[in-house]
C-alpha cells in the first residue's frame, strides 16, 4: 500500500506540472530546472535589494517577513488553482475510485502531491530572503533549526487555508455558469485583500520589532508570518510552537473534511450548471472572421481558471504596483528622496516598467493554447495571419492598457515631463508588442499541442520562460548599461529614445518575419 501511495504522489506531481514538449531537446526536467533557476535568480535579486534597504533602516527582521509573504501568496494561488482540477473533480477521480485502493490513500496522495509543490514554492519564494537575512544578521544553530521547522511546517498554513476557502467557493459556485471565471476573480480578490492588508505593514512592523504593537487588521492577517519571523529572528520558541499549532489545526481539518466527504466534494466540483437559456430569435451581432477568432481567444481565457489567473494577475499587479508606487512617491518623503527626480527618476521608472512587464506576463501569445482543437484552425477558411494576429490582439488588449496606465500614473504622480511621458508610453507599448511577438514566434517553432491543462502552455512552457528571461535581461541590461556606464556621456532622454527605437525596430522586424516566415511555418504545422 505504501508503494501505491508514493506512486500516486508521483503521478499527482507529474500531472500538475506535466510538461511535454514536442522538441526532445527541452525535456520536462530541463524546463523545471530552467524555470526554477530563473525564478530563484529573480527572487535572490529582490531579496538582496530588500535586505540591503531594511538593513540600512535597522529593520532586518522585515526581510524574513517579506519572504514569508511571497511564499504565502505563491502557495495560496497554486492551491486555489490546483484544488478544482487535481484534487477534486479531477479527471482521474472515477478511474481511481474504481480501483482497489483505499479512499484515504487516494486523498492523502493527492494532498501530499500538492504539498510537494508548496515546498517548491517555499524554496523559490522564501529561501532567498532567509539566506539574505542570515548573510546580514549572522547564523545561529537554534535559528537554523527553527528555520528548518518553519520550512517544513509553514506551507501547511497557506495550503490548508486556501484549500478550505476554495471548498466554500466551490460549494457556492457549483451551479453557477462561468464558475471558472468567478472563481478566478474570487482568488484574485483574496490575494488583493492580503496585499492591501500589507498597507498596514508599518503597524505590524512596529509591533513586531518592539513587541508592543496593537492588534490591527494587518497584524491579524499576518499573525502566523509574524510568529514564524519571531521564531527565526529572536529564537522565540513560544512563537514557533503557536505557529506550528496554527498550521496543524487547519491542515487536520482539511484532511478530515476531504477524507470524510471525498465523494460528495467530487460531486460538487464535477457538477455541471444548468444549460444557459438560449433564444435563437434574438438578433445577434454577426462578427467578421477575425473578430470571431479574437472572441474565441477571450472565451478560452475567461473559461479557464488556470489560464485566466496566470494571464491576468500579472496585468493587475502592474496596475496596482504602479499606482502604489506613485502614491508612495507623493506621500512618503523617504521614497521620493531615494528615487530622486529628473533623469534618474525617469530611468528608474523605465526600468521598473520593463521589469514589471517581463515578470508579470507569464503568458505569451501562443498557438499551443489551442491544444487538441488545433485541427479546427487549420481546416477553417481563415488565413494564418488572421489566426496569429487574433492571438496577438488578445495579448495586446490585456497588456498594452496596463503599460499605458503605468505610464500615465508615473506622469501624474512622479511629475515626468510630457516628453518623458511620451517616450515611456512608446517604450511600454513597444515592449508589450515586441515580447508578445517574440513569444509567438518562439511558440511557432516550439509548439506543444499535447498538454493536459492550460497552465502548461500559459506559464510553464519553454517559449513563455524564454520570453520572460529575455525581457527580464533586457530590462536589467538597459538600466545597468545607462546607470553604470553611459550616464556621464548621454542624457537619459536620448538614451531611452534610442532604446525605444530599438524596441520599435525589433517589433517591426518581427512583424515582417511573422508575415513572411511565420505564415510558412504555421502552414507546415500538422499538430
Amino acid at each position: 500500500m505504501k508503494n501505491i501511495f508514493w506512486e500516486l504522489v508521483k503521478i499527482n506531481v507529474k500531472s500538475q506540472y506535466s510538461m511535454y514538449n514536442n522538441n526532445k531537446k527541452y525535456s520536462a526536467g530541463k524546463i523545471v530546472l530552467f524555470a526554477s533557476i530563473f525564478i530563484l535568480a529573480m527572487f535572490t535579486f529582490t531579496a538582496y535589494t530588500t535586505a540591503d534597504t531594511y538593513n540600512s533602516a535597522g529593520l532586518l527582521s522585515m526581510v524574513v517577513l517579506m519572504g514569508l509573504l511571497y511564499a504565502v501568496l505563491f502557495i495560496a494561488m497554486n492551491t486555489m488553482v490546483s484544488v478544482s482540477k487535481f484534487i477534486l473533480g479531477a479527471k482521474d477521480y472515477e478511474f481511481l475510485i474504481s480501483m482497489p485502493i483505499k479512499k484515504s490513500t487516494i486523498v492523502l496522495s493527492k494532498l501530499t502531491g500538492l504539498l510537494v509543490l508548496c515546498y517548491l514554492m517555499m524554496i523559490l519564494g522564501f529561501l532567498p530572503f532567509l539566506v539574505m537575512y542570515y548573510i546580514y544578521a549572522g547564523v545561529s544553530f537554534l535559528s537554523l533549526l527553527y528555520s528548518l521547522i518553519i520550512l517544513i511546517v509553514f506551507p501547511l498554513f497557506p495550503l490548508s487555508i486556501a484549500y478550505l476557502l476554495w471548498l466554500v467557493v466551490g460549494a457556492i459556485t457549483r451551479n453557477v455558469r462561468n464558475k471558472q471565471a468567478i472563481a478566478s476573480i474570487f482568488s484574485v480578490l483574496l490575494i488583493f485583500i492580503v496585499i492591501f492588508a500589507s498597507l498596514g505593514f508599518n503597524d505590524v512592523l512596529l509591533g513586531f520589532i518592539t513587541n508592543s504593537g496593537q492588534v490591527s487588521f494587518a497584524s491579524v492577517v499576518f499573525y502566523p508570518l509574524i510568529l514564524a519571523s519571531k521564531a527565526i529572528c529572536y529564537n522565540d520558541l513560544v512563537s514557533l510552537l503557536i505557529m506550528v499549532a496554527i498550521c496543524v489545526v487547519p491542515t487536520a481539518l482539511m484532511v478530515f473534511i476531504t477524507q470524510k466527504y471525498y465523494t460528495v466534494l467530487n460531486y460538487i466540483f464535477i457538477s455541471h450548471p444548468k444549460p444557459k437559456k438560449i433564444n435563437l430569435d434574438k438578433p445577434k451581432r454577426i462578427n467578421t472572421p477575425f473578430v470571431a477568432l479574437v472572441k474565441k481567444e477571450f472565451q478560452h481565457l475567461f473559461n479557464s481558471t488556470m489560464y485566466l489567473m496566470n494571464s491576468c494577475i500579472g496585468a493587475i499587479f502592474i496596475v496596482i504596483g504602479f499606482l502604489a508606487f506613485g502614491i508612495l512617491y507623493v506621500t512618503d518623503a523617504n521614497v521620493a528622496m531615494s528615487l530622486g527626480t529628473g533623469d534618474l527618476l525617469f530611468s528608474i521608472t523605465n526600468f521598473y516598467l520593463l521589469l514589471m512587464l517581463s515578470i508579470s506576463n507569464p503568458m505569451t501569445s501562443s498557438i499551443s493554447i489551442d491544444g487538441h482543437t488545433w485541427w479546427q484552425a487549420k481546416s477553417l477558411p481563415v488565413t494564418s495571419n488572421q489566426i496569429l494576429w487574433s492571438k496577438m490582439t488578445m495579448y495586446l488588449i490585456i497588456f498594452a492598457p496596463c503599460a499605458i496606465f503605468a505610464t500615465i500614473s508615473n506622469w501624474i504622480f512622479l511629475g515626468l515631463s510630457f516628453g518623458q511621458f511620451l517616450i515611456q508610453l512608446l517604450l511600454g507599448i513597444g515592449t508589450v508588442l515586441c515580447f508578445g511577438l517574440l513569444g509567438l514566434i518562439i511558440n511557432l517553432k516550439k509548439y506543444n499541442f499535447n498538454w493536459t491543462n492550460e497552465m502548461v502552455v500559459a506559464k510553464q512552457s519553454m517559449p513563455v520562460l524564454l520570453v520572460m528571461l529575455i525581457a527580464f535581461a533586457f530590462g536589467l541590461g538597459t538600466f545597468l548599461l545607462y546607470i553604470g556606464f553611459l550616464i556621464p556621456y548621454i542624457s537619459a532622454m536620448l538614451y531611452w529614445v534610442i532604446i525605444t527605437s530599438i524596441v520599435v525596430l525589433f517589433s517591426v522586424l518581427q512583424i515582417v518575419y511573422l508575415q513572411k516566415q511565420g505564415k510558412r511555418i504555421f502552414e507546415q504545422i500538422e499538430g
Partner: protein
Amino acid sequence: MLKIVDLHKSYQKGNEVLKGINLTVENGDLFAFVGHNGAGKTTLIKCCCGIHDFEKGEIKINDLDIKSNPLECKKLIAYVPDNPDLYGFMTGLEYVEFICDIYSIPQEKRKNKIESLSKRLDIDKSLGSKISEYSHGMKQKIALVGAFVRDVNVLIFDEPFVGLDPFASSELKKMMKEFCETGGCIFFSTHVLEVAEKLCNKVAIIKAGEIIANGTMKEIKGDKTLEEVFLAEGE
C-alpha cells in the same frame, strides 16, 4: 467535386503513408472510404481538408487546387473528424455561431439552419451547455450541426457514426442523402460496412496507403456483400 490525383504523403522520409492515391468524388456522390486501422484513411482526409501538407500530387475542390488556393477550397468544404476535439469552453450555440461567423452566414439563414439541424440531431436542448460537458455523441452531433450549417459543396467526415445514438444515426443518413440530392458530395471514412453498403453509391478500399478497389458500389461488390469483398481484399 473532390478530385485526388497521384497523392503521396509521408510523415518521415522514406516511410510513405499514402502511395499515389487517385480518387474522384463527383457532385451527388455519397462516397465511402474503408480500410484497416492505420491504412491511411485519416491522413488522406486531413490532406483533403488542408490540415496536412503532402509531397506530391494534387487535390482539387471544384477544380480549385488546395495547395494554391487553400482559403477558397476551405470555403467549399466542411470537415468533421473521428474524435471531434471542439472548443470545450464554448457552448454548443456559441460554437455553431463561431462557425457561422467564419463562413459569413447571414443572420436569418443561420437562425433557421441552427434551429432545424439541432432539432433533427436532437441536440437543441443542449445548445446552451458548454461543449466540455458534452458526451462523445453530443460532441459529434454539434460538430455535424457545425458542418451542415455551412453553405459548402463538399462534406468530409471521418467516422461520422461513431458515438451517435440510433436515432441520430438514422437522421444523419437522411441528411447525408438529402445533401447529395441537392448537388453536394460527401466523402467519408467508416468501419461500419453495412452502412456504407446501404447508403453510398461509390466506395473505395485503402490498404497500406494504396487504393486497392475503387468504383460504384455495384462494381465493387457485385453479388457479394461489402464485408465479404473487404475481407477478401484484405487477405
